[in-house]
């Protein structure tokens, strides 16, 4: 009687606890598998997504670059054909070359200045917050602005031609010019009146002085000849269209 009573007691706790233990085991395995499959990814999910986007964009960029070189080759052919066929077109041709230089479609050379700029020497000693001592997009905007105001015809940043539609912006830790990532040290080249460009940058209270105040290593050199590459991607014109002249 007593033994049966105990056995009854035993089975009354063993069965439910065994059941729950089974469930716990199953859930633990489920959790384990879920964590193993997604845990490693989710921590870097953002970086992962961004990397994929980057790769996609870059392949697009490559495709567009190919397209550009094709178009340029065609343009050359047309130009040759036109010069050969009619003398009248010489003038137009000259205009075309001028426009191409202005639009950044061809590699150019000429006198100008080269400004080099690196992250501040304070960046290494500032402890946690390095942000104020790194070169940002907003550090380069006034440089480009000053150069243009001083009559720079062609500007490039780390080999990326700066044209009318060029965006200079920080995307996370990288700085992008024409959607191409560039990094410090920066080399800003400008073709134009070298003396004018140099003095525009070195104005009292101007960009160079401001960089020096924050201990950014900055140097401006005037050169007799600088070469600047053509723009890597020609902007597509999809929305804007010319308005016919009114009579």
């Amino acid at each position, binding site marked *: 009687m007593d033994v049966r009573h105990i056995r009854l*007691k*035993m089975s*009354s*706790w*063993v*069965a*439910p*606890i*065994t*059941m*729950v*233990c*089974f*469930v*716990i*085991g*199953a*859930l*633990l*395995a*489920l*959790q*384990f*598998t*879920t*964590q193993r*499959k*997604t*845990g490693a990814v*989710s921590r870097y999910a953002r970086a992962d997504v961004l990397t994929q986007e980057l790769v996609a964009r870059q392949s697009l960029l490559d495709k567009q670059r190919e397209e550009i070189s094709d178009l340029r080759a065609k343009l050359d052919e047309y130009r040759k054909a036109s010069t050969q066929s009619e003398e009248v077109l010489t003038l137009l041709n000259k205009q075309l070359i001028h426009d191409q230089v202005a639009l950044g479609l061809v590699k150019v050379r000429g006198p100008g200045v080269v400004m080099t700029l690196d992250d501040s020497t304070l960046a290494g000693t500032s402890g946690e917050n390095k942000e104020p001592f790194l070169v940002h997009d907003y550090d380069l905007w006034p440089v480009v602005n000053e150069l243009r105001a001083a009559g720079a015809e062609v500007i490039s940043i780390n080999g990326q031609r700066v044209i009318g539609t060029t965006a200079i912006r920080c995307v996370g830790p990288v700085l992008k010019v024409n959607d191409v990532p560039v990094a410090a040290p920066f080399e800003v080249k400008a073709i134009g009146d070298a003396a004018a460009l140099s003095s525009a940058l070195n104005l009292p209270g101007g960009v160079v002085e401001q960089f020096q105040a924050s201990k950014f290593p900055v140097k401006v050199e005037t050169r007799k000849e600088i070469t600047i590459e053509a723009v890597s991607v020609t902007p597509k014109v999809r929305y804007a269209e010319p308005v016919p002249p009114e009579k």
Partner: protein
Amino acid sequence: MILLPLFALLIGFLIVYTLGVALPVGYADYVSLIILASLDAIAGGARARIEGNFDDVVFVTGVIFNSLAAVGLAYIGDRMGMSLYLAPVVALGVRIFYNVGRIRRLLLRRATASPAASEGSDLERLGC
């Protein structure tokens, strides 16, 4: 008899593990809450068993209701943008430690005291 639950734990783990089932990451928090609620029930059940007042209906309903309450609270918290899942985590965690501590004291008392004193009114005085 104590091996049976452990065995069941292992079997359950192996079955689901070999099946390789995985949930979307969003449900991971809820599953951990159910695991926590079940562990709490096991700890509570083990204590009740040692104290001699284990009730299988209380145990099973406890597992189910605590799991539902914990998951429900977490779900509401998610909808409200509040970390309400922390409430069951803390409450159940505290209870698990309380029960484990009590089991330890009960077993210690039983091991050191004479067999005759192991059951009875002196159990009431055992706290955590």
